[in-house]
């Protein structure tokens, strides 16, 4: 026996990371840690049927009507980015949460936390964007608030919104209505918003700048309703991207969702930016895209309806829903292999490996 061969290699392994006692940035990532925070801190404190539905907006009866109510905070950095700013992000984000409940968006509130030293001109730019976005979305900003904090205590500006809308026609839209056999549709190409933001932070330049896809989504949603499509569930694809939205729905309903990589629309330049930064487009944030679950028989018509509108002209059918013992999202890769599309723990970090 060759005496230079060493014995079985020794194992060493570190002590496990203790349960975190502080909030980490990852808790805001829209992935598992965010959901854990919701499950362990917020839901137990406030539990009620509307909240427990865990949807982006809550739908509650109000007299003879049904109201949708939602709230959101906007802390994006930088506050002005290619294709938008924190203002139209705030308006469209709130409008879209309402649209995802199947509600016609009606009224918004906006509370501003401004950092001492913020340029007045910047605030005016943001406010003008909000007005423009509100007009485009057909909503009114009817109440607001302003606070100022010390320099350093808010990243230029934070905006918190609330939105109210009306659910018409007795619609029930939510994960509970998803059925095995349903088709999964995405309303357009992925990743533009996240890459637009990152490109500023990472100093990426473009031949033609990548702009955020920030846009209101009530128009395509209403078009689906008017076409008589039986929409079961919708979710807009924000932090955590398509992967997180699909995982949330799969978990809420207890089904397996299968998608096909080759059908998922991503622009070449966004793909390239993701390659360079080591990011997966499935997890990159969007602000003007949603996924919809419809019966298979309605899928082709739904895609046609969406493609007729500019905001959803790249809509595509990307997968389907299957019964399952435990919730899972699975993707057939471009080359025919299969992989699990999991929820990220926290932020997706640019990798160099």
């Amino acid at each position, binding site marked *: 026996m060759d005496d230079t061969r060493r014995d079985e290699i*020794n*194992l060493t*392994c570190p002590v496990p990371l203790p349960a975190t006692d502080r909030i980490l940035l990852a808790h805001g990532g829209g992935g598992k840690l965010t959901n854990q925070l919701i499950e362990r801190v917020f839901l137990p404190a406030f539990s009620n049927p509307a909240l427990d539905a865990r949807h982006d907006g809550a739908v509650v009866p109000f007299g003879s009507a049904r109201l949708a109510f939602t709230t959101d905070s906007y802390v994006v950095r930088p506050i002005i980015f290619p294709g938008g700013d924190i203002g139209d992000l705030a308006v469209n984000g709130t409008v879209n949460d309402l649209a995802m409940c199947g509600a016609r968006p009606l009224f918004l509130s906006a509370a501003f936390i401004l950092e001492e030293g913020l340029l007045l001109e910047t605030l005016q730019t943001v406010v003008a964007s909000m007005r423009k976005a509100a007009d485009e979305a057909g909503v009114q900003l009817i109440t607001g608030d302003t606070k100022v904090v010390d320099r350093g205590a808010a990243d230029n500006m934070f905006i918190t919104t609330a939105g109210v809308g009306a659910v018409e026609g007795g619609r029930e839209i939510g994960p509970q209505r998803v059925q095995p056999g349903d088709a999964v549709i995405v309303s357009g190409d992925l990743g533009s918003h996240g890459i637009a933001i990152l490109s500023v932070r990472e100093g990426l330049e473009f031949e033609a700048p990548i702009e955020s896809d920030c846009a209101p989504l009530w128009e395509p949603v209403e078009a689906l309703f008017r076409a008589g499509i039986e929409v079961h569930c919708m979710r807009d694809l924000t932090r955590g991207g398509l992967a997180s939205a699909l995982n949330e729905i799969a978990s809420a309903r207890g089904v397996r969702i299968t998608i096909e990589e080759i059908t998922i629309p991503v622009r070449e330049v966004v793909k390239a930016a993701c390659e360079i930064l080591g990011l997966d487009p499935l997890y990159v944030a969007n602000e003007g895209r949603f996924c919809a679950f419809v019966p298979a028989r309605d899928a082709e018509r739904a895609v046609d309806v969406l493609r007729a509108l500019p905001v959803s002209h790249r809509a595509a059918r990307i997968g389907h829903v299957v019964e399952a013992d435990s919730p899972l999202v699975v993707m057939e890769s471009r080359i025919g292999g299969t992989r699990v599309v999991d929820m990220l723990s926290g932020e997706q*970090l640019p990798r160099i*490996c």
Partner: protein
Amino acid sequence: MKFVDEYRDRETVDRIAGEIRRVVTQPWTIMEICGGQTHTILKSGLQDLLPPEITLVHGPGCPVCVTPVELIDKAVAIAARPGTILCSFGDMLRVPGSSRSLFDAKADGGDVRIVYSPVDAVKLARANPDKQVVFFAVGFETTAPANAMSVWQAAHQKLENYSILVAHVLVPPAIEAILSARNCRVQAFLAPGHVCTVAGFEQYEPLARKYNVPIVVTGFEPVDLLEGVWMAVAQLEAGRAEVENQYSRAVARQGNRPAQALVAELFEVSNRQWRGIGEIPASGLRLREPYRRFDAEERFALTAPGAAESPDCISGLVLQGLKKPYECAAFGTKCTPERPLGAPMVSSEGACAAYYLYGRHEKGRD
């Protein structure tokens, strides 16, 4: 993207898979070394396309996974110092040291920043003359030239507030350590393509001869990996044991000479601890004179407390390809990406995390 898309073409992939099936007659175990290769294999479900005779095992190809605990503890200690900026590649942030990761250090108020390139850290040093800027220099041979250049530029610009915490590891000694272990069951290697772009592949030739194993320098796209497997299997079936270069569009036998020259000017070979494996002699790099003043360990005279072991983490066995992640009792239960017991579960390139994210369904584990 040119030189990317055509290497992800389904028809080409199917054809190569067909050729592999044609040539294989018996079971073979092949190890791929690079985390990037593991990532592609699992992300594209490549194993599904291989005939059942071929077993792919994942080696210690993730420098993030093999960075010793002591160095992470030192990085965390540096991040906690006032007036100091700790810069790192994103992959490193979540890896636990003895008790804390760099993410924790950031949450505690440390100035920890993700950079895309070590040169960005040098720019930070120039922009913040009143602060110490430390770059966590982790990586294989691929990244050493960039890290060397950052120190060279700092020296050239007389930036005395820049330093690097060196955690470089070298691949050939790790391959030899795996091959020389009694329980080694690897029959062929896919050598990491970009490491060889820099370092060439002359160093693998004595290994192929001594241990009688085929070593195929392989790229990172599905077509590359399948072609690499094809070449390895063809050698195994024919009883050959040579070094071959699948990734010839990016790798020359002598590697990149200007890059090697700069690395040799700034660094020298040293012994190195590999997390999960132990010490491998002459498997790391450290700064040499007259650049030792840029070494963060020396500059900050750091001592780190000893690291404790967890009995549940079998990362050592996983890193050597002796066990698959799902064969670990803690996989997916006690050990998950949110609550990792070992580095391979934390790093997005680590075999355990990759399996958790992409491959759980294979063995019916949900």
